């Protein structure tokens, strides 16, 4: 068989090879994204995603969407503009969450005994689904960045509230008021994460009284738009073939 001859001999065989190729690529993509995105999110989101006593209504809401919209934007750029596949963001979040859960369960709980209800990851799926759908329906990077990016930031807090609210129930503890999440942070000793390192409601925004979560979410949504643009371009550049020598 010469190099110019086809490797398959029938249409059925071609379909079979194509499907095998699909699963190989999807499997590889999933785990490459899992590894890269997980490291990225651990380094940039870090403690905000690790501990319930860091998941506050201001900085967690602000930081998590901004640093997590990166890979979804880039992978979307590759899968949409090359294959018209609208699951770039969701496949990223599936990879990230699988990695996060393995890490939290095997390391945080299995190795260092932190209870899972203290160190579970944030839920990023609602924003990812909407991000994919907006790109698919509009076929526009700009509209996806503005509408999808904004939705990604805005859906983060309400998407996590059903999981977090029970931990914000107050307790009286030796004469001080805390939330259950605060108490988890105090009870389950972390030698390298002292109380002062917690980034809880630092900064201004005091004029909004107690309703700071929506303000933080809008700010996060706005920055997510900008970050989406940036990483979408990264993705486009990375998915290009300009640097491959033409045959």
């Amino acid at each position, binding site marked *: 068989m010469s190099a110019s001859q086809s490797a398959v001999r029938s249409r059925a065989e071609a379909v079979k090879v194509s499907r095998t190729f699909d699963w190989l690529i999807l499997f590889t993509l999933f785990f490459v994204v899992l590894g890269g995105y997980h490291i990225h999110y651990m380094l940039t989101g870090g403690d905000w995603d690790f501990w319930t006593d860091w998941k506050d209504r201001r900085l967690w809401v602000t930081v998590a969407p901004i640093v997590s919209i990166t890979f979804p934007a880039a992978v979307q750029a590759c899968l949409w503009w090359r294959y018209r596949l609208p699951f770039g963001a969701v496949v990223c979040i*599936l990879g990230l969450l699988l990695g996060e859960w393995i890490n939290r369960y095997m390391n945080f709980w299995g190795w260092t005994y*932190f209870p*899972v209800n203290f160190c579970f990851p944030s839920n990023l799926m609602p924003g990812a689904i909407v991000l994919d759908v907006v790109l698919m329906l509009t076929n526009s990077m700009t509209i996806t960045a503005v509408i999808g990016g904004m939705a990604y930031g805005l859906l983060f807090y309400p*998407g996590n509230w059903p999981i977090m609210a029970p931990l914000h*129930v*107050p307790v009286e503890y030796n004469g001080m008021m805390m*939330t*259950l999440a*605060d108490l988890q942070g105090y009870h389950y000793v972390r030698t390298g994460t002292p109380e002062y390192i917690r980034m809880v409601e630092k900064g201004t925004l005091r004029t909004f009284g107690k309703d700071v979560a929506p303000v933080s979410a809008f700010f996060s949504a706005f920055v997510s738009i900008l970050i989406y643009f940036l990483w979408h371009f990264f993705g486009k550049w990375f998915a290009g073939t300009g640097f491959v020598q033409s045959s």
Partner: protein
Amino acid sequence: MKLIKDKVAKLSFVALLVTVTAAMFYAPTASAHGEKSQAAFMRMRTIHWFDLNWSKDTVAVNDTMTISGKFHVFAGWPETVDKPEISFLNIGIPGPVFIRQGSWIGGQLVPRSVTLELGETYEFKVLLKARRPGDWHVHTMMNVKGGGPIIGPGKWVTVTGTMGSFTNPVTTLLGDTINLETYNLSNTYFWHAFWYGLGLVWVGYWARKPIFVPRHIAMEAGKADSLITAGDRKVALGFAVGTIAIVAFGMSSTNAAYPVTTPLQAGLLRGMKPIELPARTVNVKVEDATYRVPGRAMQMTLTITNNGDSAVRLGEFNTAGVRFLDPKVHTDETGYPDDLLAEEGLSVSDNSPIAPGTSRTVQVTASDAAWEVYRLADLIYDPDSRFAGLLFFFDEAGNRQMVMVDAPLIPTFI
């Protein structure tokens, strides 16, 4: 050539097997917390822990123990470490093998960070509840913002029982008693599984048809529009609307189920109450201090002036948690960790009582393997080669007086 390659491959395989087998038979537990690796000056010139007491050596799961004692915040705090203006009383254990049920400085609960004053001495207590069985090295610890964790002395404590029986009941302000160990776990699993499942369905919808090759060919052929059908659009719209509806429903139903929630609490506690020590009547001037490397001994020339009304003798030198005692004056009866206790490690050239109103210059030697074991001798390699510690004098009635010393240290190598 092939024979050599085969042999190398075979030997490599045998070596790998031997390594794996050896690791299976001997894999010791890493039990220390790097306390010996922390720069000696950090341990000698920042927080001085003393009068420490670990209430139990063995404790069953769900039972409690306390670590109590005092710490002195060194007035000559090194310039290379941030001042303890924002500090946190912590505990040095390998993960939450205990839970911290309470911690107090000067009787004040300190779940928050605190401000400590240089030169002051504070009383502290930490209440721990055993959670995971094993032998654990339990250290005192103070985290200082800009300085890092400053670890104090540690003692081995054995926890018996099973972790499965551990409970952590907490009563909320709404009157519900929950087990914080497992609280909210099924809710967390449910929501994560639900959203993960929905994500899988979304990817599965697209992956049910050929994904990469035919779509790429169609894209290259300019037939991109044919790849998304009207049905696809309807399904996608359903996903988006459904997602937003589920998020809205989840938010509103959660607010109905938990009408009272409060934001996370954080803050800084100022005004920690120090111990009011009696007026000091013993003054000490360090004339010189040397560390003799081969002998693992520190020698100080001290001029001691007794301005009190009772004769005093030097009984103890405490630095970085290592206690050097003169057994003729003072012995330990608290069960202090053996590796940190040099029961006969302090010798004084003339340790007869120093009468009131008199001064005496003496040679004091603190010698013990602990200098090397705890890597305190590394002080001579620090950028600011000074030592510091607490001297404890005892009068005829057994009353104790604490004096802080701080001076340059000259190493001798012969």
